[in-house]
């Protein structure tokens, strides 16, 4: 089961990276960035599960928690910038 999650994480990273480069619409680029982040988080959490101990490792969990909050604040400021850009173009 661990290997399935590793493969899933890698697939998510690959397709979102491709679309992040290809997309010319900023909305889709932002969504691709968020999915890229989720793929990396999935990799971390799967690695935390991949131990000999009974319960998974809490340190990657805390790191991912921090990462999600930072990703949300980055999204907030990106949304604001993109809306600003649209106003300028009009």
């Amino acid at each position, binding site marked *: 089961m661990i290997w399935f999650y590793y493969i899933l994480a890698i697939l998510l990273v690959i397709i979102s990276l491709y679309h992040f480069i290809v997309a010319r619409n900023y909305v889709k680029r932002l969504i691709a960035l968020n999915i890229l982040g989720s793929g990396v988080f999935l990799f971390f959490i799967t690695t935390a599960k991949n131990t000999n101990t009974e319960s998974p490792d*809490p340190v990657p969990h805390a790191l991912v928690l921090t990462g999600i909050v930072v990703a949300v604040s980055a999204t907030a400021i990106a949304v604001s910038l993109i809306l600003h850009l649209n106003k300028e173009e009009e």
Partner: protein
Amino acid sequence: MLDLALGLMLFVSALLSLHSKDTMKSGVFFIIFGFLSGLIWVRLEAPDVALVEIILGSAITGLLIFKLVKGSKQKDLKAFTFTRLWAGFISFLILIFMLFHLTTIERQDRIASLVFENLHKSGVDSAVNAVLLNFRGYDTLLEVGVITLAIFGLLSLGLKREAYYWDNPLLKGFSRLLLPFIVFFSLYITYLGTFSVGGAFQGGALLAGGLVIFALAGQALPLKASIIYIFMMAGLGVFSLIGLLYALLGYGFLTYPLELSTISIMIIELSIWISTAFLLYTAYRGKL
């Protein structure tokens, strides 16, 4: 079997959200992606991460993306063939690299045992929150700094945003009934952070969701701008003040003495709770 089905749904929603022509649809599929990844993290025994993902990564990001999709009228242009080739090449290289890396991953004990050994010194019973607020307090302090700075940067753009609301008696009544319950429940989640699944960011983001529903019904909070500023700065301020206090008393920056650690962590969590709620609410509104 269960994992396979959930993973398949997750992958399909990610693919559709990246591929679909309509940006509104891709926003909706992104929200489905967020909720499904929350379910997957429950399966991977990471309930803390699942709670954060459902509340912040899916719902709050989803609200922001809804506003963005509605406000942005940029056309979806086709990419150049050269870009496609280049992107495909880069992605393929990374695929090869990561597959190669997969073969070297071993099943081993990581630093988990270190955390569980020292858990009684942290003043918190939940391992994730012990790492977050005690062992790696610097990280969390900087994280609070990042989110505060991001929202102040957003405010400094000075963009006049459109407000979306629906003047409906049903929604108004419901949001008024819901708000006290949400305040109570988010405080409960914050309090749970000291011994079980929960924490300040989750609770704060939950309260922000409740405030957004309140705003969607066309109501404004009866608070002055200065009070909202104080609430927004509370997390960063209290956290660094407590850190400095212990540094001056000779314990070291953010090193709590054993008998005072629980109460310090509680105070810090409370301040992060209120500031996260108002920061995310401001991020949604785009103005004070």
